[in-house]
């Protein structure tokens, strides 16, 4: 039983360790910028973009109530070779009055290599489509990940069976 428990733990660790590997997707940074912009001053969008860039998307954003943007959509971006390791990310926002902005965010990596800053807004281009326009999603699970999910399901079954085997069925206590 102890060997089985160790084998199960090793299998769990093998499956979970790759899940700890992180990344820094530029699309996610653009999305966080737009989400924080939508929260008004409390969202502190200056963490992701200078005030002048934020004003282009939501003029006078500091004085607006949270939830001014009714739609925020970000698509798969494209990195380009530069010393900053930048990326172009398509996005679309629609405010509560129906005004739509469809554009591309130009993002540059921070000097320390972590995260990034949106430095400029450019017009939308045909090569970068949003998911609602038939473009690719920001990220999709690989076939290996789907297989891993099925394996985790099997692992949970084995773990449950192992736990249940520790609780043996015992007869009710005899009458006094």
């Amino acid at each position, binding site marked *: 039983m102890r060997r089985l428990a160790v084998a199960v733990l090793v299998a769990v660790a093998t499956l979970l360790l*790759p*899940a*700890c*590997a*992180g*990344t*820094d*997707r530029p*699309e*996610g*940074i653009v*999305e*966080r910028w737009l989400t924080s912009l939508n*929260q008004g001053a*409390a969202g502190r969008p200056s963490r992701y973009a200078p005030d002048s860039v934020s004003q282009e998307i939501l003029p006078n954003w500091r004085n607006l109530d*949270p*939830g001014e943007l*009714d*739609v*925020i*959509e*970000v698509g798969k971006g494209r990195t380009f070779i530069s010393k900053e390791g930048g990326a172009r990310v398509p996005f*679309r926002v*629609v405010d509560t009055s129906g005004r739509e902005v469809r554009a591309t965010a130009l993002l540059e990596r921070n000097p320390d290599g972590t995260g990034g800053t949106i430095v400029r807004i450019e017009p939308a281009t045909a090569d970068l489509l*949003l*998911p*609602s326009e038939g473009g690719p*999603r*920001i*990220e*999709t*699970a690989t076939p290996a*990940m*789907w297989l*891993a*999910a*099925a394996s*985790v*399901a*099997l692992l*949970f*079954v084995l773990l*449950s*069976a192992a*736990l*249940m085997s520790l*609780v*043996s*069925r*015992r*007869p*009710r*206590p005899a*009458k*006094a």
Partner: protein
Amino acid sequence: MSEADLRTPRYRRRLLVLLSSATFFEGYDNFVLSFVLALVLVDLGGTEAEAGWIRAVVGLGAVLAFALSAQADRIGRKRLLLITIVGYTASGALTALSPNLTWLAAAQFCAQVFLGAEWAVAVTIVVEEFPARERGRALGIVTSMNTLGGIFVGILAFVGLQNTPLTWRGFFVVGLIPLVLIAIGRRTMLETERYEAVRADPASEALDHTSLWEAWRPEYRRTVLAVGLLTFFRHAAVAAAAFWWAYYAQAEVGMSVSLSGLYLAAAGVLGAVGFLVAGRLMDRFGRRPAFVAYMLGALVFGTWLFQIRSAALMLPVLCLAIFFGLGSVAMTSAFSTEPFPTYVRSRAAAWCRNAFEVGGGIVGPLVVGLLGDHVTGPIGSIGDAMSLTSIALFPVTIFLCLRYVPETRGGDLVALDREVVA
């Protein structure tokens, strides 16, 4: 007239209305804080970080509810139900009067303690007061009210309760309505027949009616663990889906906030039918076949839901996912009460719900968020992370149900109690 004569079909209908009203407001109170939180922060002053702390403190109340709900085996079902209704009504009133965030967090923490216990005792009362052939139907009705209570918050917001002079406080004033239930319940409600019979039996004096660990005695622990694990895995997947669907629809599908809200309300009403159908199926085919069918449905539609990119297709699949995912609560409510004798039933239910289910409700949404984070998550997509989580979690619930959970359709609670005290 003896008490047995008072338990007529008419009395049971009135009892069902009383319990349904209690679970309706439990669903209402569970949902209302997150709904008005933005307004609260503006009015009382606060940041998102403070809101996160409030959420964490309030969530801890569900853990403490475990100890309170277990008291139903000691002080009786009727008394505890009335205490919990008074408790969460008073907590709601204190919330409406909140002068600052600390007060509000403390009042909502208390509300959560009473709400968690109220749900557990309501389910126990249904199981003990309704004949075996009607038990599933009654469980389906009482549990479905929880979802409708949550939707009621959205309806009040739609008609503009927040725009009245009371603003967000008005939502908590509405939560005072359950006091009417107390007025009715105190006069007409009886202690459950099974509880009274067991307490009146001299042989039951040898049984432990107070220890929280009684449910882990050798003769019960196998069922408690099996039902607890099943509840944990089911709730982890369902809570994650409920928590992340709106975010997925808005951020990954491009739906507007207003459209996703409308979808959720419409699907919630249609999905509530899932509880009622579950109750019928439980009585007709048994608890285990009904649960397996619901889990297969939740696996298929829960996985598909988070792969949909079309807003038109989203609504019917959302309805079916809620139908199967949330509707299965009717079965888990039966699993956590019916296999256990009356003297320990509430404590066993408390373990299954408050200990295991609350854990699942914390772990599920957290794991999906970590895996699907758009910046740092290894999967990078909430939709895919949720679909993969469904695939990983739902099969084990079917395995546990088929292999370890006893079938209790038509179960004779009287015989079960006699076996224990004999």
